[in-house]
């Protein structure tokens, strides 16, 4: 028997009202938790995917589209760039390394990315099984692709033209890929793509040349017909940032896009939506606070005899005040705890949906220190809502109340 027992007993006695208040607060807290978890994870994932890439060069078009299609494997590419121009750029003295990307096909929605071994090295991806590709039409699977397709080394598959399921429908039946390796999970974009050599993409799309000896595709295909989708560029020195993009944009048919700039721009665009949702969640929390206030105030009126009797039993006014504040805090505490749990569950549900759509991976099973602040915020709302009822409890006129009762 203590104040907590009394508070809990009162909350139980008004179960419907208590449930309503807890749910109202939980909704607001859940929304904010969901936003916190998804935005922070998205931001972290996107930063991890773009780390170490100073510039992306693709065909003329939207720089944002170039970044989305080449780094995150989300959007469709802007077009193709010529292999010869790419070679020239790789020799530029402002460029330290260039990783080529050739995108054209997918396998069951997982993109087939033609590149070289530097790409694997860039993301620190290690082999879980088998080996890296050594010849055209050999493929290495990202961890998630392997998990979902249940393919291992030795499996063969046929790519479909286009960037996603249902797009194109044209199957490259003449050129089957053979799986030679599977990568360990990296927590990056590599997990959800199929990796192969750039020449595989050329081989699959060089039908008009009728090249039988796929292994010698790089020699047999005329240089003018060799194309890439994008180049991931690392600068030789920081000064390159000032000159190289402009040089590319003015002197070639290619377009330079800065991952840092474009992702920042993307987040300001998403940020508007996030802010609206956050504002909405805060309104929910305020409404919950108001509801807690009304509930406690009404309860106080019903309970004024109880409070007076507690005074006759020896309770000080301060104790009654603490009782009311405690009740507010208890309601808020339940609401916040439930809200955080719901927020995590919703995030996980969203993550499952994202994974099904082969998009960025998000999980609800992670915790953030900001959630402690959220909990504190909710408790604060509960206590503030209880302030006036608590003050009224403090001022209860025992003799007057009992005389009337």
């Amino acid at each position, binding site marked *: 028997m203590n104040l907590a027992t009394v508070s809990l007993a009162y909350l139980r*006695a008004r179960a419907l009202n208590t449930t309503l208040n807890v749910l109202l607060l939980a909704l607001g807290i859940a929304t904010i938790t969901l936003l916190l978890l998804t935005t922070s994870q998205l931001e972290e994932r996107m930063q991890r995917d773009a780390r170490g890439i100073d510039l992306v060069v693709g065909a003329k078009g939207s720089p944002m589209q170039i970044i989305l299609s080449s780094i995150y494997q989300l959007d469709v590419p802007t077009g193709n760039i010529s292999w010869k121009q790419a070679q020239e750029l790789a020799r530029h003295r402002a460029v330290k390394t260039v990783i080529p990307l050739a995108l054209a096909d997918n396998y069951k929605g997982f993109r087939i990315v033609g590149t070289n071994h530097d790409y694997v090295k860039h993301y620190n991806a290690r082999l879980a099984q088998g080996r890296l590709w050594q010849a055209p039409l050999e493929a290495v699977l990202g961890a998630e692709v392997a998990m979902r397709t249940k393919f291992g080394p030795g499996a063969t598959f046929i790519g479909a033209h286009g960037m996603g399921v249902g797009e194109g429908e044209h199957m490259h039946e003449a050129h089957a890929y053979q799986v030679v390796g599977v990568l360990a999970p990296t927590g990056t974009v590599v997990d959800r793509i199929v990796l192969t050599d750039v020449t595989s993409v050329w081989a699959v799309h060089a039908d008009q040349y009728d090249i039988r000896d796929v292994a010698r595709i790089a020699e047999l295909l005329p240089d003018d017909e060799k194309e890439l989708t994008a180049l991931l560029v690392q600068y030789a020195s920081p000064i390159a940032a000032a000159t190289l993009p402009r040089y590319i944009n003015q002197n070639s048919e290619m377009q330079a896009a800065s991952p840092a700039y474009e992702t920042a721009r993307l987040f300001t665009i998403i940020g508007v939506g996030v802010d609206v949702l956050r504002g909405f969640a805060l309104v929910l929390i305020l409404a919950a606070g108001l509801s807690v206030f009304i509930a406690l105030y009404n309860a106080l009126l019903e309970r004024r005899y109880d409070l007076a*009797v507690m005074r006759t039993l020896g309770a000080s006014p*301060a104790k009654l005040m603490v009782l009311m504040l405690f009740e507010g805090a208890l309601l808020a505490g339940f609401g916040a705890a439930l809200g955080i749990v719901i927020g995590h569950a919703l995030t996980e549900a969203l993550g499952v949906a994202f994974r099904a759509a082969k998009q960025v991976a998000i999980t609800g099973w992670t915790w953030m220190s900001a959630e402690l602040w959220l909990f504190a915020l909710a408790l604060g709302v509960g206590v503030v809502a209880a302030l006036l009822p608590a003050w009224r409890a403090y001022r209860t006129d025992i003799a007057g109340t009992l005389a009337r*009762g």
Partner: protein
Amino acid sequence: MFALRELVHAYDGREVLRVPEWRAAQGAHWLVLGPSGSGKTTLLHILAGILRPTSGSVGIAGQDLAALKPAALDRFRGEHIGIVLQRLHLMPSLTVMNNLLLAQYLSGLPRDGARVREVLTTLDISGKADAYPHELSFGQAQRVAVARAVVNRPKLLLADEPTSNLDDARCEQAYELLDSQARACGATLVIATHDQRIRARMSNRFELRGRP
């Protein structure tokens, strides 16, 4: 046991109670009689330390109530004074057991489950320890209210109109309950009433006259 001197209480400048002097010995049983509006409840509230009189002194168990700070007065009331209210006012959301434990807790005394069960057994309601007030009959609820008032072994037991609106048999029961429980813990008993039926049962009477 208690002594009132030159006690005057006024509401909005209108005098509602005047007690020149009243002394009671420890363990004595007193009846405060008077018609409605004669100030019985006010007198009881002053004795309980719920209400501070406009003037005059109240001493209980050697303690001058006026000398106590509010918090100390609350504590003193919790420890030494038991009150049975006319409308009982048990906490509706707490079980009988918890109603009694609450009285111990709020008085600042240690919570003693054994004492609570002992009181409930004496009053023959130990079977209702886990029941909620709305599940009790009136007679049971009255016993619980008395149990709550005596659970801290008070020196002074106050009852405000404990028998009004009761039939003769229940009136008798209520009186017996208060009388026996006050005796059991050696408390001074003060019953304020306008009920003539229990007049005959008590020899110590303090009469308040109605005011015009």
